């Protein structure tokens, strides 16, 4: 029994008028796992999350959590903790009252002493025990989201649902809070579904990342696998940067930039195609007899991004450690080749 997934979403479908928000979405989440759903606006990721929370009715599909069918269960009976994109603290309650709110309700009723102990524990966990008596209007955006997280965790939710909780925050706070969410999730072992359109966020904290498109799951895999071995052209192009370079595929490999590299599963198997090459998989060395010229160079700290014009006029972007990019300034002749890493090749349309 322990091998069966903790959360099972089977064939979920939801239409809004003519728009298919979910079109047969199926997803399994293991107990204690953090899965991120990533995708462009309108791909259905938030609809899926809201459906699991019980806030969105479905046209069809089945949702099983901890072995129980929750498809038709009311939101207030599901025991899901949710943190929203918009600030959602109850404005007339202090931070502590917000955290304790769920524990006062029938579904999770707890004695006063236990409630207080639990709120102390969670406020401590999110680093805001000194702000227990502050009202939401006295807290910053990051602090409000921390309290919202503590509130969602207070009821010991079956699944923690995070609906782009960091998108309203500035970059620095976002990174900090992202790491805190992961730390807390690992500490508590809470099964978590995290929806975001920010790939850095998804790749940074999730055990597995699911990329959604048009209401369906395009691919779900560990972040490194998703990045290095995309299963579709959409995933390759959506996650990270790629250089589209045309070449000919034969015998499971493609010839590009004087190199031969293997093609990934799902690519075309033969003929002319467009390889989607990651900037860091392009090797650049200074060479008077090279096949390209540096067009521009951007210093990014630890790495350097080069825009390179190939002899045939194609422009590609390469990213290499700053130490390897010394002397590669605009106009420098270079030799460009590929590292021996497999690439995804899509057909020419």
């Amino acid at each position, binding site marked *: 029994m322990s091998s069966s997934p903790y959360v099972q979403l089977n064939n979920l479908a939801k239409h809004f008028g003519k728009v298919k928000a979910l079109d047969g979405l199926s997803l399994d989440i293991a107990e204690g796992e953090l899965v991120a759903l990533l995708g462009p606006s309108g791909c259905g990721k938030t609809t899926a999350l809201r459906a699991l929370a019980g806030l969105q009715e479905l046209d069809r599909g089945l949702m099983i959590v901890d072995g129980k069918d929750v498809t038709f269960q009311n939101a207030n009976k599901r025991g899901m903790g949710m943190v929203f994109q918009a600030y959602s603290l109850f404005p007339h309650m202090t931070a502590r009252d917000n955290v304790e709110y769920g524990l006062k*309700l029938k579904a999770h009723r707890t004695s006063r002493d236990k409630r207080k102990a639990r709120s102390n524990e969670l406020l401590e966990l999110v680093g805001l025990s000194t702000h227990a008596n502050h009202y939401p209007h006295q807290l910053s955006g990051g602090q409000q989201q921390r309290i919202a997280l503590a509130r969602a965790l207070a*009821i010991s939710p079956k699944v923690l649902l995070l609906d782009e909780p960091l998108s309203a925050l500035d970059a620095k706070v976002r990174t900090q809070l992202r790491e805190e969410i992961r730390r807390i999730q690992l500490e508590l072992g809470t099964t978590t579904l995290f929806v975001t359109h920010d790939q850095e966020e998804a790749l940074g904290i999730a055990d597995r990342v699911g990329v959604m498109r048009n209401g369906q799951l395009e691919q779900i895999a560990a972040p490194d696998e998703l990045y290095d071995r995309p299963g579709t052209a959409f995933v390759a192009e959506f996650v990270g940067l790629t250089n589209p370079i045309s070449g000919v595929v034969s015998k499971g490999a493609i010839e590009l930039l004087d190199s031969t590299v293997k093609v990934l599963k799902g690519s075309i198997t033969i003929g002319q195609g467009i390889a989607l090459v990651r900037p860091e998989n392009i090797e650049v060395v200074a060479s008077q007899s090279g096949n390209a010229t540096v067009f521009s160079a951007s210093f990014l700290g630890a790495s350097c991004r080069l825009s390179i014009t190939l002899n045939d006029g194609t422009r590609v972007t390469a990213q290499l450690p700053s130490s390897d990019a010394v002397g590669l300034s605009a106009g420098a002749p270079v030799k460009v080749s590929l590292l021996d890493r497999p690439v995804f090749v899509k057909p020419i349309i």
Partner: protein
Amino acid sequence: MKKSIGVRIWRISIIAVVSFYLLMPLYAMFDFSTKQFGLGGKSRNLDSWRIIPSQPDLAIAITRSLLTALIVMALILFLIVPTAIWVHLKLPLLRRPFELLCLLPLAIPAIVIVVGIAPLYRWISINLTESPITLSGVYSMLILPYTYRSLSAALDAVDIHTLAEAARTLGASIGRVIFGIIMPTIKTGIINGSFIAIALVLGEYTISNILNYKTFQVVIAQIGRANGNVAVAVSLASLLFVLFLLLLIPNKKRLGTVLDVDVK
């Protein structure tokens, strides 16, 4: 520096003009209520104010009107507010029709409304009760335009959908969401709407007079026919009372303090 002094003078001037415009009639009422015209010419005293308590029916009319106002307030709290929240939360398509419905009493003259509901009140007074408190029914309809606008503005100012969904996921029932989360959040709107409603109920004359109920305003009018000075004194007292109620409406600055204090 010069500019700020100029702005200050400009502000003070505007406040002075508006205050004069608003307070002058009140002063005129006070002036009239303290003047006595007799054979010996004009004299000035507070007799009209002193005899207010001894006016027949006045105390009972005030009590009735206040009781009616309280019932109207209860109707606002337990009927209109939850309905407005429900429409905003669950029936967004009905928002416009509901708003139009609530604005109707403003468009229909009171005299037309009273002609329409007179048979109903005749039936009520014959079969149920003759108490003027039954007027709270028609009054709660009359105050709809003001109360609904106030509530609607408060509901639009906060993201009640997210608050409601957050409470739902934490285990709250719909009733708890409305009464425990949304209503405290739009407290200012509810207080505004309620006080405006009280002011309107205490000041209403046409309907109660035509339906023959002795409310506060009807009794004032009766007193006025017997003694103009006393009627003006009573009117001024009632105006000041309503003004006092309106001043109780918490402003935005005070709201934070109100929330800080009464949340427990």
